[in-house]
């Protein structure tokens, strides 16, 4: 089997051994949830329930008619207590629906639907109705990806099984425990977009999953004859970045400012594919967040299914143990791209892939030195930008040069900041730089229309 990869990238300590061997545990003991309304990437949605209403797990509680939205479902059965703003994982306040449990285990399901017998529109509608968003990244509505314009034919559906972020093991456990669901979800996605090829892109630190997935593919293929291949990828961060993964497995590069569909690809995280399978086969909506809880300040690393909207603080003590005096940073997601939060009183979202309790040794912070032009960031950049030169352009406010170097192409993977021996806050400055460029572009557009 060939080992595919992309140019650039880094190899941070994996720290996956903390939780990789621990089976996923379903948490049913949650008494209250705070479900953020807008977990997806796109337009905002509106609540369909009012304070005092009784809801069932799986029941739709918010939706919108707008494109680029997905509905939201109650993750526990109980009573709607309030609908108001709460601190979210992105460190901003946003509207959320508070539900208190009535200890009922009832769950509402959609009718079962055969993805290969129903029409394409029905299938797309089902994926939307189940509230599925891309859980590997920004929360892009899954149905939008699977309904590209007719002039963009899709050849490849790529299952993103790279899981390149350190600490996170939930995708690995998902594939080990539910390989058939993942493969089924992949074939459904392939069927919807009429893709000839399906590829599971797996980092080679998870080679032990190859026989498990191969068996699942065999079981599936005997009935339907889909072309699904497993491609082993070099273990390297950010191998699971959408663009990097496409390049690694197909050799194609997504053109600057374009989308994967422009190179005939659809990329979906394995957890998203499993959710797609369950939406058809079981009629299940997205009610649980699948995540890894880890970090060296957490004494019980685990892989969990917990109701969407569970507040991290509510897990501590009952589900996980945390060494409270050692925690110096709480990160939602992986340590390379996940945001740090100011307290444990934040709710988990559908696309929260991990909660890390990092101690002082793991989450170091440094004073910035001066750039010595060593070029490590240039070699680490997964987009072949020139971070050192980009940083210089931004520091002298030369935004045109910053755009020419490619600030808008930066995927914010953080490899440059990771390797910088002077600990310069490169990616952090590029995030701000993007905003500065966008503001400038808006101003120019306004001036042009006047």
């Amino acid at each position, binding site marked *: 089997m060939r080992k595919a990869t992309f140019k650039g990238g880094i190899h941070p300590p994996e720290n996956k051994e903390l939780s990789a061997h621990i089976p996923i545990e379903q948490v049913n003991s949650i008494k209250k949830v705070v479900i953020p309304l807008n977990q997806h990437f796109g337009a905002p949605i509106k609540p369909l329930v009012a304070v005092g209403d009784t809801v069932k797990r799986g029941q739709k509680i918010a939706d919108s008619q707008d494109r680029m939205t997905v509905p939201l479902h109650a993750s526990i059965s109980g009573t709607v207590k309030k609908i108001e703003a709460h601190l979210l994982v992105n460190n901003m306040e946003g509207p959320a629906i508070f539900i208190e449990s009535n200890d009922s285990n009832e769950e509402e399901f959609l009718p079962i639907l055969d993805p290969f017998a129903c029409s394409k529109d029905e299938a797309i509608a089902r994926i939307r109705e189940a509230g599925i968003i891309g859980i590997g990244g920004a929360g892009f509505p899954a149905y939008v990806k699977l309904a590209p314009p007719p002039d963009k034919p899709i050849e490849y559906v790529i299952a993103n099984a790279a899981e390149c972020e350190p600490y996170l093991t939930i995708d690995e456990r998902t594939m080990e425990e539910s390989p058939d669901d993942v493969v089924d979800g992949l074939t459904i996605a392939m069927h919807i977009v009429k893709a000839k090829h399906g590829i599971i892109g797996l980092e080679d630190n998870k080679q032990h999953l190859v026989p498990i997935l191969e068996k699942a593919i065999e079981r599936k293929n005997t009935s339907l004859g889909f072309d699904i291949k497993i491609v082993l990828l070099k273990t390297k961060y950010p191998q699971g970045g959408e663009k990097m993964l496409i390049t690694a497995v197909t050799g194609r590069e997504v053109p600057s400012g374009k989308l994967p569909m422009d190179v005939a690809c659809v990329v979906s995280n394995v957890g998203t594919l499993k959710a797609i399978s369950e939406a058809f086969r079981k009629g299940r909506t997205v009610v649980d967040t699948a995540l890894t809880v880890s970090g060296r300040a957490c004494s019980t690393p685990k892989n969990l299914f917990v109701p969407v909207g569970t507040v991290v603080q509510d897990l501590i003590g009952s589900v996980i143990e945390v060494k409270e005096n050692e925690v110096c940073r709480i990160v939602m997601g992986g340590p390379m791209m996940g945001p740090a939060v100011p307290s444990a009183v934040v709710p988990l979202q559908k696309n929260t892939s991990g909660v890390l309790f990092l101690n002082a040794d793991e989450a170091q912070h440094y004073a910035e030195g001066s750039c010595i032009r060593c070029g490590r960031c240039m070699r680490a950049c997964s987009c072949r930008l020139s971070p*050192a030169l980009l940083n210089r352009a931004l520091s002298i406010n030369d935004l045109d040069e910053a755009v020419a170097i490619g600030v808008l192409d930066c995927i914010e993977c953080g490899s440059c900041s990771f390797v910088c021996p002077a600990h310069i806050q490169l990616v952090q400055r590029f995030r701000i730089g993007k905003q500065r460029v966008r503001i400038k572009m808006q101003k120019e557009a306004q001036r042009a229309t006047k």
Partner: protein
Amino acid sequence: MLQNNLLLSSSPHVYSKIDTRKIMLAVIIALLPVTVYGVVLFGAHALLVILVSVASAVIFEYVFRLITKQDIRIGDFSAVVTGLLLALILPPSTPIWAAIMGSFAAIVFAKEFFGGLGANPFNPALIGRAILLMSFPQRIGGSWHIPFKAISDATTTATPLTILKLGGSIADVGKSFVEQGVAANADYASILNVLFLGNRAGCIGESSILLILIGFAFLLLVHVIDWIVPVCMVGSAFVLSFILGADPLFAILSGGLVFGAVFMATDYSSSALTVKGKVLFGIGAGAMTIIIRQFGGYPEGVTYGILLMNAITPFLDKLRTKKYGFVKPVKSGGARS
């Protein structure tokens, strides 16, 4: 409740363990074999030049940043590297006061005046050497000591490149090796052997190609430098001396070419940052070296060859690698489509 003493910062939250200090330490380790061999070859005075040069470089940086009210950075060892590099490219007979002056020029003129670490457009050690070379041509590079003979013996000779500059041939170099007792025979193979092992007259650290290559291998192994600049520089010097009718093997083994290619042309802040820039930097520096040797007034051209390329480095920085998903802009000057 988990709320106190939590750190908030933008991701990433983990960092590599490599810092500026470790990089500088790696360079110092890579320089140790040639440093020790320089002392073995040229004796106690060479050791004194090295120690004075390093110490004064550190002191000048400390004092300059103290006077100009900037944070003291001697802990990053970059001044140690500059002082050591300067000493290694000075002749073993360099007077102590000249070593101190060279250090001053390197640290204050070439480095701190431009903003310190990472901001110097020219290689500080080479600036130090160049200023000494121009100011005191008789004391610096006017006479050379025979290896394994004490400086006080006042036995002087010429370097292989000086012999050539004065109209001698490679055979004359062989004769001088036999006279000095560093080679048994004056044939071509013996000459190359002496040049490779480095028991010849020259600057303190430049002579042994073997030990320089060991340092090079170490720096490659710990990923402190890459091979592009050294290989392009030595390669272009080889090709150009062949074209100009000189002996290419002799050209790359004699003088300070390999030392300069490995330790000077790879200086982070004064040499090219991008891959294409590095290729051009190396080719240009190698070519300039040979042109100065063949047509210039100095027997050796590495110093000025590299310094000249330093001057065009800001331009070389424009030769970036094409970014991921590069699309040719429709209009020039406009933002991306």
